[in-house]
């Protein structure tokens, strides 16, 4: 049996089930709405595991799942050297969201990362501490800002309501996921012109660290043919 991990709730789960369903693979819960046991129909040798989307990257990297569906943002953030451990089988076309750097609209002088760097230098000089950027995507944001030569900032952890941190003065800027930018605008924020860190969508991943038997490989081959992804 090969193990396929799928998000256990919400829109991400519904759309994943629909995506597989359109391709002739039925995914459903074994019992009631609250039951996390699940089955895959229409193909042999595939075991369905429901779990939190946030845990799927870790399980894939550890090889405890052979396949999994989760956002590319979560894989890139949570799995160092993900290219060596995971293979992207198919972008699924939903769950789209962009990880962006956003600053107050009132910062009319800041439109690019170059501006942000200059503003951070002056801010630190004036206030005696680094310019704070609230995010939960620490690794992606840090790598992105280093790549673009932004200095004099500090990341502060924000696990929710990140758009509100600037108004609450616990951060000066944010790096967060947005799909339409509506929440950002409503909170007086704007996206930097070159502030796109990662364009994410739900993706079907294959673990390269899982134990792949001959039987498992045959199941995978059958599955990718049925899904029409390779």
């Amino acid at each position: 049996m090969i193990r396929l991990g799928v998000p256990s709730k919400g829109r991400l789960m519904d759309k994943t089930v629909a995506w597989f369903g359109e391709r002739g693979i039925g995914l459903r819960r074994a019992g009631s709405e609250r039951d996390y046991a699940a089955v895959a129909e229409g193909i042999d040798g595939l075991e369905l595991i429901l779990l939190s989307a946030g845990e799927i990257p870790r399980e894939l990297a550890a090889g405890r799942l052979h396949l999994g569906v989760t956002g590319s943002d979560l894989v890139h953030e949570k799995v160092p050297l993900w290219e060596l451990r995971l293979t992207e089988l198919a972008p699924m076309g939903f769950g789209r969201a962009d990880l962006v750097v956003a600053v107050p609209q009132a910062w009319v002088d800041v439109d690019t990362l170059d501006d942000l760097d200059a503003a951070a230098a002056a801010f630190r000089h004036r206030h005696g501490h680094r310019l704070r950027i609230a995010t939960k995507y620490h690794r992606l944001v840090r790598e992105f800002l280093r790549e673009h030569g932004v200095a004099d900032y500090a990341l502060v952890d924000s696990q929710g309501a990140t758009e509100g941190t600037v108004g609450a003065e616990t951060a000066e800027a944010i790096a967060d996921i947005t799909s339409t930018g509506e929440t950002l605008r409503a909170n007086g924020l704007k996206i930097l012109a070159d502030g796109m860190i990662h364009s994410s969508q739900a993706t079907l991943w294959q673990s390269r660290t899982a134990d792949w038997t001959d039987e498992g490989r045959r199941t995978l081959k059958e599955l990718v043919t049925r899904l029409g992804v390779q």
Partner: protein
Amino acid sequence: MTAAPTPDLRAEAARLSVHFRAAGAQPVEAAILQPADVLLDLYGEDIRARAYVTADPLRGEMMLRPDFTVPVVQMHMESGADPARYTYAGEVFRRQEVDEARANEYVQVGFELFGGDDPAEADAEVFATVAGALSGLGLTGAIGDVGLLIAAVRGLRTTEARKAALLRHIWRPRRFRALLDRFGGRGAVPPSRVRLLGLGDPFDGAGPDIGKRSRAEVEARIAALREDAAAPPLSDEERALLDEMVAIRAPAPDALSHLRDLAVDLPATRPAVARMAARLDAMARRGIDVGTLQFEGSYGRTALEYYDGFVFGLVAEGRPELPPVATGGRYDALTKVLGQGRSVPAVGGVIRPDLALVAGGGA
């Protein structure tokens, strides 16, 4: 790769400690857990990618020491002896995000020299003491001097704001390059900036004033942008001179004569070039064959530590996969940051005994 220190490694570390003590250094210790805020403030967010962060509900974030520099500087600033020589030996911890083959825990044995009134002599003493501890291993030396580039930038015929921006990014060569191009009128000016500076009231239609960065700070930056837009571009000649300086790779005596030639057009670098000449003389007096040292114009610009003067490394020849067995340099500016305004000349070097054993064929 995590390897517990072996008896051989302990013996090599002890041998190096004895060598440094014989050179007049006082042995010192440092806590393994260091307060994270000091290191974060000093090195910035990048240190999180390179050091292990842990937390304590009462003391907050702590870091497993990534090196001894900060605690030793702090200790010295409190004692204030001048000059002072210290040595230490112990594990340091480096988080690895991109290369599992690199060690995340290894022993460092260091030698640090604070104070004194002859920086060239102090640089030479540290280099000769570190190299002397490793003689017989056939290591080759590479040297550089970040102070040359700092002096060259300070002497540019441009605005103080541009010089400050360049100095801030000395240790980020790509960003430095981009700024140099922009100040030279080469990089494109972002359209949003052109538009901003063309507006009568830049705040027309701006969103609500939220957050700690005030309207006055935004206004100050717009004024700075206007000043920059009005300033003439940095000359092609000056940019070419800087490029030439950082691209030098030659045996130290040849590099010195090249730098002397450059100093005709970059007169601000003359004191730094004279210091390099004095340093090479002092090294020669200590028996170092300076003709075998390779000078690299960009050496030390991508290191974690912000060295701001002499920098050096000793590498095992024919083993390009090995990190340098020893590294070091001058870090006067760091003492100023940690000393809350008070600063003291400081230069030091560290040896990795594990690599010394490998280079010596012992492991």
